[in-house]
């Protein structure tokens, strides 16, 4: 394993005639890597200490003072003046025999067949077995040294040696991190779901496949983050391999989240929306039936950097032959969200087009009204009609897997009413995409309290004025843009974003801030200094002035609510534009 901080003492040696020098303590394998010389290995990984059990990396070493022997490259530490030869006849014979022995043990392991080809082994002359494991010990050592879980170990001796959990019972030490499956050279270890323990499917893991990864390709800043829930270091305190391998020493496990106080003049809230979780709608069977996915999950399938590299796959890894898209799941619905989420129709069309393009599956779209309101939207809809997508006008009532005849076997059957032909229909499909509603964030209530801008009945922020001030809110300096103000698609969101930014820029550009007109004023002669008003003001805008012995209003802070004026026992404070005189005059005028 190369030491990151190379110790000063350098060692000079020769590998296959090419000379090289590298740090003391490095191995022949390190030297070979430096020179690009290929040495086959099976039980080696840089993750843990070399074990030298498979002996495949045997090479010949010639000592400077004469003599020499066959050693394993992965753990033989280099010293001055040795000459290494990695491809002599003897070495090829030895490696050939080792491969033949392993192939006799595990006849149908691909990695061994490739090695056999390379070393010219046509026929295995030895007695065959039916094993899959070559006992290289990678899984055991990674589990112990790197992961620190010690869930598995070798058991038995000599020919009955095998990899096992204690008493062959499912081990409670195993943290299902999948490290053993990753390092197994013959790929015979699988990570399976057991009693609901969290597992990572290779085929369709919607979660991050690695514990340290970029949130997504286009993330800004483009820096990886550690998913502490899956990272082994945070579970067993061991591993730490990413820190070892990062030559910028950029990884520090002790860093904690910090809250930073930033003084700003304006705030644009673009907190976006949340997708409605359709599992509460039992009739669609999301979370219960396989291959019923939400629109966001389907988008993740299509993403080139996603788990399936952009291919539309079912959970068993196969390609669907028929896909259904159900609109208005939770939207335009009395029991859930009355409003229309606006964007589903258009992305449903996009998905239909993608499915037609990527697979040769039939596509069914269950809609109520096709709302193609934008530029070029309607034309796109007609194009879809030509592409042969089946549009069924009628809300899908239920998805079931109960098949009543053979061609519905193993399929998801969508029960719906086709209002255009006035008939109930059962459509068997392989996969169903639910266009679920866009709803406000769970924490919108919290945010509205903090920034004192009110929430509409649909949970989205209320703009100051629907027509005249769509991106500002009742509190000055606080603006809203995008999904948090209501369901909208990307063009509208971008437009609102620009608008909010413009609003902010105009405020910043003006240098001074307009003070609130209607603020409170203290009449110092009448003020008795009782400080009662200080307690009333939520913005601490009224302070008692020690020398003057009276309370004074801070004009910049006062928002003009007038509570202090109402509470002052000696009417020493008056709220401009809402003085008592004016109110009384209004009362008299009204009656």
């Amino acid at each position, binding site marked *: 394993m190369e030491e990151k901080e190379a110790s000063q003492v350098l060692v000079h040696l020769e590998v296959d005639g090419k000379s090289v020098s590298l740090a003391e303590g490095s191995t022949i394998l390190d030297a070979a890597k430096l020179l690009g010389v290929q040495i086959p290995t099976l039980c080696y990984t840089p993750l843990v200490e070399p074990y030298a059990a498979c002996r495949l990396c045997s090479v010949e070493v010639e000592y400077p003072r004469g003599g020499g022997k066959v050693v394993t490259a992965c753990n033989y530490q280099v010293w001055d003046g040795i000459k290494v030869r990695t491809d002599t006849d003897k070495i090829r014979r030895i490696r050939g025999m080792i491969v033949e022995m392993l192939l006799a043990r595990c006849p149908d392991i691909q990695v061994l067949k490739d090695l056999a080809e390379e070393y010219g082994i046509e026929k295995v002359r030895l007695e065959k077995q039916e094993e899959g494991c070559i006992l290289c010990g990678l899984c055991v050592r990674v589990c112990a040294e790197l992961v620190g879980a010690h869930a598995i170990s070798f058991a038995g001796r000599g020919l009955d040696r095998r990899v096992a959990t204690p008493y062959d019972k499912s081990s409670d030490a195993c943290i299902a991190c999948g490290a053993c499956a990753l390092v197994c050279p013959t790929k015979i270890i699988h990570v399976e779901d057991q009693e609901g323990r969290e597992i990572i499917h290779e085929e369709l893991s919607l979660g991050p496949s690695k514990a340290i990864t970029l949130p997504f390709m286009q993330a800004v800043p483009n820096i990886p983050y550690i998913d502490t829930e899956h990272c082994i270091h945070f579970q067993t305190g061991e591993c730490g391999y990413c820190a070892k391998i990062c030559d910028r020493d950029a990884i520090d496990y002790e860093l904690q989240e910090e809250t930073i106080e930033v003084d700003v003049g304006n705030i644009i809230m673009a907190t976006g929306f949340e997708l409605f979780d359709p599992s509460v709608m039992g009739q669609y069977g999301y979370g219960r039936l396989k291959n019923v996915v939400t629109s966001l999950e389907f988008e993740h399938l299509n993403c080139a950097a996603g788990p399936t590299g952009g291919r539309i796959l079912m959970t068993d890894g196969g390609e669907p032959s028929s896909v259904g898209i159900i609109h208005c799941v939770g939207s335009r619905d009395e029991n859930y969200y009355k409003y229309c989420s606006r964007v589903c129709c258009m992305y449903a069309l996009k998905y239909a087009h993608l499915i037609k393009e990527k697979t040769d599956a039939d596509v069914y779209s269950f809609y109520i009204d096709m709302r193609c309101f934008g530029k070029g939207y309607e034309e796109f809809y007609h194009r879809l009609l030509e592409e042969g997508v089946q549009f069924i006008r009628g809300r899908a009532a239920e998805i079931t897997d109960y098949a009543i005849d053979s061609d519905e076997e193993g399929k998801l059957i969508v029960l719906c009413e086709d209002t255009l032909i006035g008939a109930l229909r059962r459509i068997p499909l392989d996969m169903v995409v639910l266009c679920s509603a866009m709803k406000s964030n769970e924490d919108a209530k919290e945010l*509205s*309290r903090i920034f*004192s801008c*009110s929430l*509409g*009945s649909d949970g989205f922020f*209320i703009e100051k004025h629907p027509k005249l001030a769509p991106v500002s809110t*009742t*509190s000055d300096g606080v603006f809203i843009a995008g999904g948090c103000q209501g369901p909208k698609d990307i063009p509208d969101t971008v437009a609102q974003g620009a608008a909010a930014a413009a609003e902010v820029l105009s405020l910043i550009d003006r240098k001074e801030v307009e003070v609130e007109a*209607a603020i409170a004023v203290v009449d110092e002669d009448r003020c008795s200094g009782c400080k*009662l008003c200080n*307690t*009333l003001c*939520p*913005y601490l805008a009224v302070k008692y002035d020690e020398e003057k012995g009276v309370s004074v209003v801070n004009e910049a802070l006062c*928002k*003009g*609510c*007038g*509570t202090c*004026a*109402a*509470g002052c*026992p*000696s*009417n020493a404070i008056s*709220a401009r534009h*809402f003085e*008592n005189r004016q*109110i*009384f005059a*209004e*009362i*008299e005028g*009204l*009656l």
Partner: protein
Amino acid sequence: MSFEPRIVGFLCNWCSYTGADLAGTARIKYAHNIRSIRVMCSGRIEPTYIMKALYEGADGVLIAGCHPGDCHYQEGNYKALRRYMLLKRILSEYGIEPERLRLEWVAASEGERFARIVDDFTEQLRKLGPLAIKESIAEAMKDDIDPHEAHNVESGEADEA
């Protein structure tokens, strides 16, 4: 023609006034008996305003503010609630039925709700009948002072319990 009570409504600018405005833009029908005054916050309303309104001939006063926690100025509506509680007790001493004063929380989106409150308050006052406090005071004090100056009498009471 049945008795048409006159209601003075003090509406906070951020929630109730906007709610009332929404009822209007949403073309919701509701009783015309209310005449509203906009104040920046329900916390701005002094008990003297209510007494003034009743004195000037209002048969009922409605105070409308933001739902607790929604106040644009954080705590204004809490202060209004306290003053309202105290004022209710004093009204009966003046011989005014406490039901003539009513406090409601109306959010900016609750145009519908505002309308219903006004209709309901109107019915309630219709049952109570006219207040005409001004005449009864004049009646009782016929002999000594001129009622016009009465409203300048400072009648502060401790706000904070």
